[in-house]
């Protein structure tokens, strides 16, 4: 993590995930009502960066295709090394040759979420192979204050996000008590769910930068007073208790060194235009 060392690029292959369910179709929501989870992994159509996390009735739905790998260790590596903004290219199937970009990651067994142009996404099929040009872990821009850690972000994308010396623009800053699933897990590969539902008075959009107070995400994610972590919203809401819209962390540091500026109405975070997917 030394400033000035060159980031290394590693091409890794992922496979477009097929959704998986258990013997029962039901999960149980926070009110005890069973529901059938839709949109939790695989290819999700009809959802874009910029849409509200509450726009669709789904469970952890992400705007694009999730990549996995059949070998557990390779799947973890794909997830750890992939960074938001990394270029991806479809290698097999009807969409072969199409280009996309990493828009986030999810934890547990590990998933990389890749965004595509709508026409390419509809031609994708679970099992298609996608190569990711992974780059970013270990990268550290020279302007970053010494106590601030950056992770999970492509260097070229960081340069065009509303992030720089003395300012990080975010949609909202939320309190630590809203941190949910993902606490205690490594920020390099897991997302952090925010315990926000559609009735809680705060709206978030897929791709937003969001800050969360008193969370240290340098290694595992956990409570540390007077810290702040910033992540990108990579998937939508969930009816499950303890779950909700998820952020992939990109910055974490002491509040004195990482200044966030909430802009609930005018914020623009990660967009298809920044990823050159328009």
């Amino acid at each position: 993590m030394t400033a000035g060392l060159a980031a290394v690029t590693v091409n890794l292959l992922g496979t477009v995930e097929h959704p998986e369910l258990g013997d029962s179709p039901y999960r149980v929501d926070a009110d005890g009502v069973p529901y059938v989870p839709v949109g939790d992994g695989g290819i999700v159509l009809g959802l874009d960066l910029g849409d509200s996390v509450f726009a669709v009735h789904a469970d952890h739905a992400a705007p694009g295709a999730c990549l996995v790998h059949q070998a557990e260790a390779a799947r973890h590596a794909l997830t750890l090394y992939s960074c938001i903004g990394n270029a991806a290219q479809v290698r097999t199937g009807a969409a072969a040759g199409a280009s996309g970009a990493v828009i986030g990651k999810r934890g547990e067994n590990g998933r990389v979420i890749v965004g595509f142009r709508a026409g390419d996404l509809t031609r994708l099929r679970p099992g298609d192979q996608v190569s990711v040009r992974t780059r970013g872990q270990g990268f550290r821009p020279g302007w970053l204050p010494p106590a601030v850690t950056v992770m999970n972000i492509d260097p070229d994308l960081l340069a065009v996000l509303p992030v720089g010396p003395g300012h990080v623009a975010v949609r909202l800053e939320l309190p630590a008590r809203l941190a949910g699933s993902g606490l205690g897990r490594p920020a390099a590969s897991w997302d952090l769910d925010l315990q926000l539902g559609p009735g809680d008075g705060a709206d978030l959009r897929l791709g937003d930068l969001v800050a969360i107070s008193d969370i240290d995400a340098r290694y595992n994610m956990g409570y540390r007073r007077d810290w702040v972590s910033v992540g990108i919203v990579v998937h939508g809401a969930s009816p499950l208790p303890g779950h909700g819209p998820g952020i992939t962390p990109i910055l974490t540091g002491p509040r004195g060194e990482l200044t966030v500026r909430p802009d609930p109405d005018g914020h623009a975070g990660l967009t298809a235009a920044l990823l050159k997917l328009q």
Partner: protein
Amino acid sequence: MKAATNAARLVSQVLTGEVWPALADRHGYRVGPDGQPFVLPGMGGVTLGVHCGDPATGYAADHLEPGASIRHADPAANMAVQFLSCVGNQVRVDSGPAAGAVGHVIGQHAYVLADFAEPVAASLTTGDAVTITATGQGLRLSDHHQIVVKNCSPGLIEAMPGGTRPDGRLEVHVAARVPAEAIGAGVGMISEYANTDLMGAYEGLGDDLSLGLESLRVGDIVALADQDHRYGRGYRPGYLTIGVISTGQCLLFGHGPGPSTLLSGPAGAFHLVDDADANLASWYHGGAGWHHHGAGWSRQDNSAADHGADR
């Protein structure tokens, strides 16, 4: 007045398991709050010297599991063991030199955790067979419809002080109150499996990590503010969850001493009484001989609470 329950209509199921080993990978190290790598014992096997009533923190340990850590070798049978075992259920040793000795479930942590008297624990090891008489899931409080009961043997409800108050609320005695900010790993999981780690109890580390939870004891009954564990574990303002501290010291960041869920419902349905004696040791695992080696332990070393409905 003791809270009325449907205990008379519950069944018991006989489950088996074995003391399960500690698990590690070839890289060994895990990472603490400040990035410190560590190799520390605590999970799996039989952890000696820590019992209900003892401090939960202050050990060179990670995810300290007091007593025996139990699983079933078959994956589906293991889930039955994990989901159906309830705090207070009797655990009997069926093989090895401690065969015949009896302890009790104190919680779940992806292992079922069973506390035994120290001389029994000292003679247990990985692979020893146990039988758990599981009863408690499905337990209801007849006069407290808003409160959901989880992982709780009828004998434990019977033994806990408090009960139905004249104003209709459920009185529960708690040894500690936990703020919502302390809830760590385990949030978002189902309430019948593992437990909720509490952050802010890293004894000896920075003040910026502390939420004042360094004095928790194993077996403490605690109240978790703004937590709804009725159908999983999540944040919900105005709700309250009662748990029992079943695991102790952690160094892994975002983790810590963990309560297994017992009761959950709207905060207004509860009346909390702060009571330092609100600990499983007061009802199950107290008395001379439990904490120390030496003569005096019996193979049927049951305390008063064991004579309730869980037998």
